[in-house]
Every structure is written in structure tokens, then in C-alpha cells.
């Protein structure tokens, strides 16, 4: 009995390790071997008690035209076909119910729809930042997400329908680097 309980405890320990490990392996593979895309964003700054502060990402590309005749249900898994616009940013050119045999695509879930458009819940909807930096990142983004000044975007790696957020960029700089430069400029002007 005691041996059996010990074995059960060992199996539980392995399962507990396997869950974070499997999350890491899949995302590392995508980050290393996935194709690179850029998405325009519009963040705000909520608070997640378990995972600290993050900047919520609202991607312009998450609203897609409703394909004719496609029946949808809430939380349904769909596949969004990726394309690049003339400015080099990614957008979804179509939605399909089954993963396509060729081309780049992203698996997503339907969050809302009407006759014209479908809103998707994408696998990257937040950028986690250090507790003190998140409000600064949000301020920086807001300054760069006006209609006349859209210089914020995220880079994403996509592989086999899985997407992993790589970095948030402002004025073509990773957000950390951008904030460091801004702080440097502030000190010089002081």
C-alpha cells in the first residue's frame, strides 16, 4: 500500500512538472522555428493578480470579415489565414473551419460575430511587463497609437497554427530599449 502511494505521489510530481514543461516546449519551438509577423496593437493596463501587471493588447487584425455561409458558435475554434499588407503588417485574409494544407495560418477562437464581421480571441492578447514598467509602457503606447502617430506594433512567431508573442515595439525599438532611451533623453534635458 505504502509503495503504491509512493508511486502515485511520483506520478503526480511528474504530471505537475509535465504541464509547465509542455507549455514551454511548444512555445520555444514556435519562437525558434516560427515565421515572423508584425501586428498593429492598441493596449490598456489591467492587473492580473496571479501573473502581475500586463499591457492588454487589442489587435486591429482581430476583427475579420465574416466568410459567406460560415456558421459560427461562441468559442468555436477557427483558422485565420495570414497575409501581409503593403506596409508589412499582418492581417487575416480569410477564416476557415479546418487547418489549411498550405500557407501560414493562426488558430483562434470566435468571441463575437455579426453578419459582416467576426471578432477573434487570439493566442496573444497581453504583454507582461515588470510591475513598475507597465504603466510607463502604457503611457508610451498611448502616445504612439493615435490615428496620426501609429508607431506601436508587436512581433509574433507563427508555426503550425500556433502563435507566440515575441516583443512589443514602439518607434521600431523593443519597448524596454525605447523606455531606456526616453529616460536617457529626460536626464540630458534635465
Amino acid at each position, binding site marked *: 500500500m505504502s509503495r503504491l502511494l509512493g508511486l502515485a505521489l511520483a506520478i503526480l510530481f511528474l504530471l505537475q512538472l509535465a504541464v509547465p514543461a509542455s507549455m514551454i516546449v511548444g512555445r520555444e519551438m514556435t519562437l525558434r522555428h516560427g515565421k515572423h509577423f508584425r501586428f498593429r496593437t492598441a493596449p490598456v493596463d489591467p492587473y492580473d493578480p496571479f501573473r*502581475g501587471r500586463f499591457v492588454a493588447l487589442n489587435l486591429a487584425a482581430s476583427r475579420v470579415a465574416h466568410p459567406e455561409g460560415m456558421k459560427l458558435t461562441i*468559442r468555436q475554434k477557427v483558422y485565420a489565414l495570414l497575409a501581409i499588407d503593403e506596409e508589412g503588417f499582418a492581417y487575416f485574409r480569410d477564416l476557415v473551419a479546418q487547418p489549411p494544407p498550405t500557407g501560414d495560418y493562426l488558430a483562434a477562437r470566435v468571441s463575437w460575430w455579426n453578419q459582416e464581421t467576426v471578432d477573434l480571441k487570439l493566442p496573444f492578447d497581453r504583454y507582461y511587463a515588470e510591475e513598475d514598467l507597465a504603466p510607463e509602457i502604457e503611457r508610451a503606447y498611448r502616445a504612439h497609437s493615435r490615428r496620426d502617430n501609429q508607431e506601436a506594433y508587436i512581433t509574433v512567431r507563427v508555426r503550425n497554427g500556433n502563435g507566440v508573442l515575441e516583443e512589443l515595439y514602439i518607434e521600431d525599438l523593443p519597448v524596454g530599449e525605447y523606455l531606456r532611451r526616453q529616460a536617457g533623453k529626460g536626464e540630458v534635458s534635465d
Partner: protein
Amino acid sequence: MSKKDGITWLYGELPELVRSRVLDEATAERLRTHYGPAQQRRRSPGLVICGALGALLVGLGIILLLAHNWTDLSRPQRTLLSFAPLLLGQAVAGWCWLKHRSSIAWCEGAATFLFLAVGASIALVGQTYHIAGDLPRFVLVWMLLGLPLVYLLRSSLPALLYWIGVTCWCVLGAIDRLPAVFFCMLAALPLPFWWHLVRNAQRRLAAAWLAWVLSLCLVVGLGFSCYGFFGNFWTPLYLSLAAIYVLLFGQLSVASAVSRPFRLLGSWGTVALLLLLTLKDVWRGQAFHPLLEPGMEAWPQYLLLTVLLLAVIGLLARALAAGRWLDALFGLAPPLVILQLLAGPQRLATGISLILANLYLLLLGGLVLRDGLQSGKLPRINAGLGILSALIAVRFFDSQLPFTVRGVMFILIGLAFLGVNLLVKRREVCA
């Protein structure tokens, strides 16, 4: 050496003294009779509470430290760090299982720490890879990975955390349109452990705390399990749950600390629901949400309601057979309300439903009061008065009734109260 320790020492020496013929068996037996049974060392609940709370605080502290999100650490470093709390928790739990399996304080502390470490690890991976927010799924995976610790380390605090966690999953999942109706099955998983504690009267404090948390979590979870169809189901569902609480824990022979939360929530829940059913607007609302309207789509909710109702009827039959009339009155409410709802306002006028609900509460309050007066139990007398006062207060502010009707009704009830008082007084004088 204290007297207790001295007796324990003496009893330990007796077999050797008999063997070496310093004493004979009869003398040894007389010594045992004279001093009585050796008192066993009492387990200190303080130690167990401190161990469990300490582990809880350290675990929560680690979650907060990791939530700070250290930008200076590279991705591989953070990935390695994700496993640190988990491996530490597993090492402590493994060591505790090997060396201190019989110590409740160690097992509670180690299991609680590991339970929280599982959540911290998964959350840190999510933070490192900016994984999209899916809080219900995160909570469910965390709870299921932590649950076996309840049985393997026989620890109660993880069971308590698990019940709170699955209730959170149910609330979040219902809003996110997940199948939250499975909450009942998830909530049932730690029940055998808790029931073992209750049945064998072990760790009474833990069993009582678990009883409070379970009774409250079931109330919250049941409502959110039927989130989409709540308008149709809330009255019969909650009345059935309250009736089961009252009837089941009135019939089980368990410690009063364990049955108290269920009996309290069940009885006052029934009274509160019946008070709501004395309001005209509530019955009107029920008419807009007929019980049969959701159709086949709501089969899990209908199944849940059927199971609860059958349980109520079974327990009600047992209560009637045992002559527990007061408990039976609590159990009668759900079937009667369901019949009223099925009849609808076409067959049973809303006015009649309102009068029936008022009479039911009046009867319930009166019987509880009478039972309290007969048994001389002050809490029961207060409960009876409380039910009647609540009914009176609701009627006093009920704008549906004209002032004149309310005035006459109040004078009549007041006279009845005075009459009962006089009767009781006269009976006391005669006695």
C-alpha cells in the same frame, strides 16, 4: 517529570517488572486500575495551524515575488526559475512523505506549499511567454494538479483551497460560457476525504472549516452552474439545496460543528427564499421564465434539478417516517414551489400563490417558535420570532397591499401575539 509522564513511564516498565518477578501480574493490574489509563500526548492544533498558515503565506509570497516580473532575467533564466518553486515544493512534500508521514503539521504545510507552487509555476510560464489570458483554464488545471495531494498527504488545507478554486472556475467559466455544470462533479472529488474525517471524528477543527467552505461553495457554484438558465431555475434549485442541507444534516449523526453550517444555511436560506416568494414581482418574473421553457438545450440543468429534487423527496420521506415534522416542513417547500411553477398563473392565480407562501412562512415560524418554547431552547425561540418578524417586516413595506388591509392584518396578528403571550403566562402560573 509530571505525574502524567510518570504514569506513562511506569506503564512502560510494568511488563519488564512482571517478567523479572519484582511484581506479579495481579499487582501490575491493580496498579493500572489505580492510576487509570495513561493519557496520550495531545496533538497541538496550534502547531498544525501554524504549519499550514506558514506554508500558505510563503507560497503566496512566492507568487507575488514572481508576479513582479523581473525584466533583467533572460528568457532561459525565467524558464528555469518557473520550475524552482515547483521542485522545491515537491522536494519538501516528498521528504515529508518519507520521513514525517504521521505528522499532520508537516503534511498540511508541505501539501499547501506544493499546491500553491503548482499555480506559481504555471503562471510564471504564462508570464514569460505572454500567453493569452484564459483564467478559467489556468485555475482548473492548477486545481486538478493539486487535488491528489489531499489524499496522498492527507491534508485538509489543499481541499479547502481546491473547493474555493473550483468555485472560482465555475464563476469564471459560466461567464466565459464553459460547461460550468460540471462543477458538481469537480466539487465532489475531495468529498470522500472530508467524509472520512467527519465519520471518524478526526481533526474536528479542519472538518468544521471544510464544512463551512463546502456549504458556501456549493451555494455559489450551484447558481453559476445554471448561469444561462438562472431565471428559470433559481427558485427550485436553491430551495432544493437548502432543503437537502436541512434534511440530510438533521438525519446524519455527525458532530454539531460539521452540521451547523449546513443547517444554518439551509434553514435561513429556505426562509429567505420563501420571503422572496411572498413578493408579487417575483412571481411575475417566474411567469416570464417558465420552468419548461429552456427545452432540451438545458438537459444538464434539468438533470441536476431532478437529482436534487429526488434527493429532497427521499430525505423528506425519511424525515416523515422518523417523525421530524419541523425538518419535513423545510423539505416540503421545493416540491410545492415546483408544482406551483408548473401550474403557472393560468391554472393557479398569483394571488393564491402569494397567500400560500405567506401561510407557509407563518406556519414555519409558528412551529419553530412552538418547538423552541416546548424545548426551552432560546436560539430556536429567537429563530421562530426572527422568521415571523421578517415576514411582518416584508408585509409592512409591501406596497402591493392597500394601507387598510395591512392595518387590519397587523392588528389581527398583534392580537394573536398578545393572546399567545397571555396563554403561555397563564399556563406558567397554573404550573
